[in-house]
């Protein structure tokens, strides 16, 4: 590794050869502003916010894509000329920006707004030019696109491409340029999988999740409704970020307290639903192996992934597990088992799910999910929307005392909690399948081979003489590789876990938005997942089938995994979708 002596703003530093100016500055405590740059996926040097001076260079250079390759390079990041250039750049961006910040969902979390403050811009310096008013796109259940707030940074295009979906891109040119779909179709009319990764990377308010918080507040204010909420495994690991807590803080107790303060009648843990999923999915897997069913079986917890399969690999639908997702299983059980037990008419129950995901907004309305004409879940909100509700209600989140989930769906095992990280569903399933097949209570239950954020992880396990080869992947670009293998008849696996979002739910499309300068230099997925694996270690029950509430629901209600009743309430079907 060759080290170079360089100067930044007159001070001496050493960096590895070919480090970019942006990375070097970050390392030495200088934030160079960026708007378009996303590490590894959008390194296009287009927004020109990161312009820096390299002594001897013909013009200013884009720090994000300029590798330092000469000994003695002298870099300046904060000269009067650079400040003026960056300020002008921002003023030009504002010339056709919808500047209604007060009513913008990204007010206070907008990267453009923040830079404008830092550079003291004159928002009216340039007027005219592009005076097109773009129509807002409200055609999907999961997000709203408002191109009047778009700065054409193309981060969303890169995120969509990374998901192997690529339904959005830059159309037209010059002042007419806009990000949109082919032939100006609305997002609801193209094969978008609803993952919401575009909303997480958007620096402004051009792409935001559909805000369903008003519906929740309305239900809470309705005395005739019994409002139940349940929170997905990964929310406890990320919600704290919305209240400036360190990334990877487990806020389970505070989250439950806040939900109770908001007025929910019952606060349940979706980890219970995750455990239920493992009981059903583990049983389905064993049956497929023993009865010569379609293999490899692929997990079906992630609605973005399921939709991707239905659009782009419909021939592989028989490989999908028929199990509903934990969200849907939980909702179904609230409106049947819980309602019966409490003597409440399920029609009076409003089930709200808090999810790391915006595709869940789509999933609750899928066909073949609810029963008796009711949806399993009525409203699905993201981590971000929950944070917004807590703030609106004036709840001082960081100061809350911990509280516990409510019975009869209060317990989630460690296996349920790790669902939120890539590899978690596989590990949870292996913990249960191994015990079932060996008839023992195995102590070695850490399956480290399937943990971590590698693109594709694989391992072979010997379970009671049966060799099970598994693969785990997240991010649809990676999933496509495994799917192509299956299509070609070359897949050697029996069981595959696919999560739509890279890193799994901890990095879902509904999770807290971290600005570029944090995203690019922080292992978000790793830190958030770590909180879940620590949670797993701290729990009394670490296997789904050990969860006493799970035992109770099978004893009292569902009989056994895969029973007729379980199939009716907890399993579903899929459809081929036309591209």
């Amino acid at each position, binding site marked *: 590794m060759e080290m170079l002596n360089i100067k930044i703003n007159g001070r001496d530093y050493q960096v590895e050869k070919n480090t970019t100016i942006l990375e070097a500055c970050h390392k030495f405590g200088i934030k160079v502003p960026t708007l378009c740059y996303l590490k590894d996926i959008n390194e296009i040097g287009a927004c020109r916010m990161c312009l820096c001076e390299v002594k001897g260079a013909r013009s200013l250079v884009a720090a994000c894509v300029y590798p330092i390759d000469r000994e003695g390079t002298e870099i300046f990041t904060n000269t009067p000329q650079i400040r003026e250039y960056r300020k002008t750049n921002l003023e030009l961006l504002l010339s056709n920006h919808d500047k209604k910040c007060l009513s913008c969902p990204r007010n206070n979390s907008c990267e453009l707004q923040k830079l404008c403050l830092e550079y003291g811009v004159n928002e009216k310096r340039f007027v005219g030019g592009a005076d*097109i008013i773009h129509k807002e796109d409200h055609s999907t259940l999961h997000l709203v696109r408002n191109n009047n707030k778009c700065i054409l940074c193309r981060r969303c295009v890169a995120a969509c*491409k990374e998901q192997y*979906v*690529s*339904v*959005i*891109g*830059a*159309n*037209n*040119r010059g002042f*007419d340029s806009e990000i949109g*779909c*082919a*032939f*100006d179709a609305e997002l609801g009319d*193209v094969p978008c999988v609803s993952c919401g990764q575009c909303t997480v990377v958007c620096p402004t308010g051009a792409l935001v999740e559909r805000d369903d918080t008003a519906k929740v507040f309305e239900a809470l204010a309705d005395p005739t409704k019994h409002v139940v909420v349940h929170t997905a495994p990964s929310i406890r690991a990320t919600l704290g970020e919305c209240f400036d807590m360190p990334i990877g803080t487990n806020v389970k107790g505070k989250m439950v307290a806040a939900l109770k303060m908001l007025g929910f009648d019952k606060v349940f843990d979706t980890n219970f639903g995750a455990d239920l999923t493992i009981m059903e999915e583990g049983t389905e897997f064993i049956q497929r192996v023993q009865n010569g069913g379609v293999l490899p079986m692929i997990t079906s917890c992630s609605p973005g992934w399921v939709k991707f399969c239905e659009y782009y690999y419909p021939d592989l639908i028989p490989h999908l597990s028929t199990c509903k997702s934990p969200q849907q299983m939980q909702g179904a059980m609230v409106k049947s088992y819980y309602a019966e037990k409490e003597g409440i008419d399920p029609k009076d129950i409003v089930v709200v799910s808090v999810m790391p995901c915006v595709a869940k907004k789509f999933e609750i309305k899928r066909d073949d999910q609810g029963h008796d004409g009711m949806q399993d879940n009525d409203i699905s909100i993201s981590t971000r929307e929950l944070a917004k509700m807590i703030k609106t209600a004036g709840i001082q989140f960081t100061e809350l005392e911990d509280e516990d989930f409510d019975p009869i769906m209060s317990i989630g095992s460690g296996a349920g909690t790790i669902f939120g990280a890539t590899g978690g569903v596989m590990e949870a399933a292996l913990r249960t399948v191994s015990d079932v097949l060996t008839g023992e209570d195995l102590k070695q239950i850490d399956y480290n081979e399937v943990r971590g954020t590698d693109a594709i992880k694989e391992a072979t396990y010997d379970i009671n003489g049966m060799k099970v080869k598994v693969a785990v992947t997240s991010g649809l670009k990676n999933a496509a590789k495994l799917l192509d293998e299956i299509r070609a008849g070359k897949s050697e696996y029996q069981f595959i876990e696919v999560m739509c979002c890279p890193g799994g739910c901890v990095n879902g499309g509904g999770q807290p938005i971290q600005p570029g300068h944090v995203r690019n230099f922080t292992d978000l997925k790793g830190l958030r997942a770590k909180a879940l694996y620590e949670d797993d270690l701290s729990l009394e029950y670490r296997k789904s089938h050990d969860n006493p509430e799970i035992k109770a629901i099978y004893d009292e209600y569902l009989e056994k995994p895969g029973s007729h009743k379980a199939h009716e309430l907890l399993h579903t079907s899929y459809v081929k979708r036309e591209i």
Partner: protein
Amino acid sequence: MQKKISSIPFAGTPEQEAKLKEVIAKRSDDPGAVMPVLQEAQEIYGYLPIEVQKMVAEGLNVPLEEVYGVSTFYSQFALSPKGKYNISVCLGTACYVKGSGDILNELSEQLGIGAEECTPDGKFSLTACRCIGACGLAPVITVNDDVYGRLTVDDVEGILKKYQD
């Protein structure tokens, strides 16, 4: 200018499709094939409607949006067919100074279509072009191969009347 998407029904022939497939097959391994294939597709069909762009996207295994992005970025690509009579209005400097912008507007109003569009009956299409080298006759328009120069807005109606067949 934002490209207008034609609403005229697609009327591609099997021969045209076979020709396009041949073009695509020749370049299916070329990562930079979108632009040259679109050029040849436009030669075959005269324009690039969604049906053609879908064939290109599928054939080259690139997203339709990428193909559409390229087709709307370059002014040489047309999303509307050319009419039986294609009217080009020169917007080069000399013609523009002499009022060709007004002539384009008048044509647009009388035909009920914007630039780069085609009338629903397929008869007239309107193109805004750059200098055609007849600055001495500014402002100039061409209708297929006929050239009309030193025009005023009042001449437009009479010119259109000549192409009523």
